[in-house]
């Protein structure tokens, strides 16, 4: 409840104020009419008295009998309201009467008025012509004190007050009736609404009470609303239950699926491990016979080639055998390399990326001293990475760049850093042969080559190795390029957080 009044109290106030106002108006009207009544009653009584005295006193005036006239006037002493009275004949006071203690009427102010009567302040004066047989004899006046009217008025006001106060009290009592009939059902409804919203119990109903039509309508509507809410609530509950069941089912399904996946993953990892072990051992084991083939081919060439026991054709075939074995050895090396990258544990440290890249570039330049490549490396690049693996990454990326700029007269390679999403992104850019962007996603798979062996030599394992290293670092690698206009390789190294 706020500072505003309750409905019941407002209604009570309203009825008290309205009945009070009505009472006041009625009382005032009554008082006014009573006052008028008393005044006119006084006037009528005084006029009849004056008429009577005017008739009685006529003969005394007629016969110039002032004593008799005075005696008649003195009968007025039985009327205490009469202040003074007098008979005026030809401008002179013929006979007079004045209440004991009252000022004697002055002849002067009695004559001027021709009115039958006049009210003046607290006094009322009535005038009557005295005549006999139509002969005017003089003028009679009687002046009365109206202060007793004031007394009457006060008495009446007191009585009115005594009536009005109990009436007001009764009005207050009666005003409690609508309070019962209107306020109570509303309060009940309000507390019910509060209870409903507190306990979320929509099954309760407001009792239909005999009350004002609007209140009854309110209760009915409230109950209808409750019914509706109850229905909706039930629907919502049902939907929620269904949804929950669905979530549980899905979760269970997902769990099963996850378990399957994990199982599959484990199987896959095991298979992968086996495969790696297998490929490692195969590569390793293949080396020995390969070396034997190469070694014996070399021996055959040196011992039999120069002694002419082998003709030119034999020498050529042997040279082909040697080239084949060397290439196979290279392949095996790369495969071993790739397997090693996977098997080695990751050891992160703060690496001077600029130094690593520069060293690799210098090695490349030394090995290919016949080529001039302008290689620019951004200074002060640092990263948290496995320095050995990062060296392999640069060997591959810079090696590729070196290799694919082989046909370029003005070969350029840039190593630098940008950032994406707050993470440092390293890049290696060249202005070499580039590649068809449609095959960009195939670049990082092993043994995938986009260029002809005769054009650019290579095993197709380098970028697969790079991808594996970057993946192990938790980073991403990507490439962008266009056939004939260079390529850029981007990679991140993860582990930032």
């Amino acid at each position, binding site marked *: 409840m706020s500072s505003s009044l309750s409905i019941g109290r407002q209604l009570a106030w309203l009825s008290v104020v309205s009945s009070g106002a009505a009472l006041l108006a009625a009382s005032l009207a009554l008082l006014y009419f009573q006052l008028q009544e008393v005044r006119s009653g006084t006037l009528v009584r005084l006029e009849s008295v004056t008429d009577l005295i005017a008739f009685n006193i006529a003969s005394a005036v007629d*016969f*110039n009998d*002032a*004593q008799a006239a*005075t005696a008649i006037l003195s009968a007025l002493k039985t009327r205490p309201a009469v202040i003074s009275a007098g008979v005026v004949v030809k401008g*002179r006071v*013929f006979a007079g009467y004045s209440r004991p203690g009252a000022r004697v009427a002055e002849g002067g102010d009695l004559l001027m008025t021709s009115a039958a009567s006049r009210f003046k302040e607290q006094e009322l004066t009535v005038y009557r012509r005295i005549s006999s047989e139509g*002969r005017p004899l003089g003028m009679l006046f009687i002046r009365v004190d109206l202060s007793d009217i004031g007394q009457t008025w006060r008495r009446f006001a007191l009585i009115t007050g005594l009536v009005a106060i109990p009436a007001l009290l009764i009005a207050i009592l009666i005003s409690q009736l609508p309070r019962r009939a209107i306020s109570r059902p509303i309060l009940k409804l309000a507390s019910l609404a509060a209870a409903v919203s507190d306990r979320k119990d929509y099954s309760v109903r407001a009792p239909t009470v005999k009350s004002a039509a609007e209140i009854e309508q309110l209760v009915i509507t409230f109950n209808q609303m409750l019914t509706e809410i109850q229905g909706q609530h039930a629907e919502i509950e049902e939907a929620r239950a269904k949804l929950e069941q669905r979530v549980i089912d899905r979760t269970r399904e997902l769990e099963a699926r996850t378990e399957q996946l994990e199982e599959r993953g484990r199987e896959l990892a095991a298979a992968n491990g086996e495969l790696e072990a297998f490929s490692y051992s195969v590569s390793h084991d293949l080396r020995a016979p390969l070396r034997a083939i190469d070694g014996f081919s070399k021996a055959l060439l040196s011992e039999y080639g120069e002694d002419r026991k082998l003709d030119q054709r034999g020498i050529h075939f042997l040279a082909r055998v040697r080239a084949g074995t060397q290439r196979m050895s290279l392949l095996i090396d790369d495969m071993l390399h790739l397997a090693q990258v996977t098997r080695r544990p990751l050891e992160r440290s703060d690496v001077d990326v600029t130094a690593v890249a520069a060293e690799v570039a210098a090695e490349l330049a030394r090995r290919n001293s016949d080529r001039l490549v302008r290689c620019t490396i951004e200074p002060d690049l640092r990263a948290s990475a496995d320095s050995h693996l990062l060296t392999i990454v640069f060997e591959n990326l810079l090696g590729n760049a070196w290799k694919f700029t082989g046909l370029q007269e003005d070969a350029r390679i840039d190593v630098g850093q940008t950032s994406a999403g707050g993470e440092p992104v390293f890049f290696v850019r060249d202005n070499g042969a580039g590649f068809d962007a449609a095959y960009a996603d195939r670049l990082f798979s092993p043994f995938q080559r986009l260029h002809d062996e005769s054009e650019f030599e290579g095993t197709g394992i380098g970028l697969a190795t790079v991808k594996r290293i970057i993946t192990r670092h938790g980073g991403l690698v990507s490439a962008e390029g266009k056939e004939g206009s260079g390529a850029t390789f981007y990679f991140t190294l993860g582990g930032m957080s």
Partner: protein
Amino acid sequence: MQRRMLWRGSFLMAAGLFIARIGVAATGAEYQVKAAFIYKFATYVRWPATTGVDVNTPFVIGVLGKDPFGSALSEVVRGQSVQGRVIVIRNIGRPEEALRCDLVFVSSSERSNLQQILAALRGVPVLTVSDVDQFAEQGGMIGLVTTEDDHIRFSINKAAIERPGLRASSQLLQLARIVGDAEADRGRH
């Protein structure tokens, strides 16, 4: 009795009340007042309807004996009427003539013949007025009296007025000293 007290009281109250004093010391002035009274008596008395007079018959005021009014009475009644009847004044010498009048003023000159006059008019609807001493007490209807302070007052013999069916109004009676004619009867025997 009450009347007498008022009479006496008037002397005591005279100073405090506003009383128009009309001096009647001079004889002329006295009879002017008396003339006015005579006319006014006529207006306060009702004659019996059996008299059978109509409006066209004049109202006759007779002055029996030596007329003391001079022109005063005729001046008073000039242009006046009594119940619509024109007033006529007649000087009469004999009581018999009074029978044809409605009102007779018995002059003090007839003081000695008073019993005879009253006997002649006894039971007749003629209002008798006189300033002879003890007129009402002796059987007259209205007797005029001059008070010590020179005011004119009157006594009424109610029985004498009512005997022939005349009626004096209460307004008139309240001003008069009411006397009976018992003493008058006594005086006759």
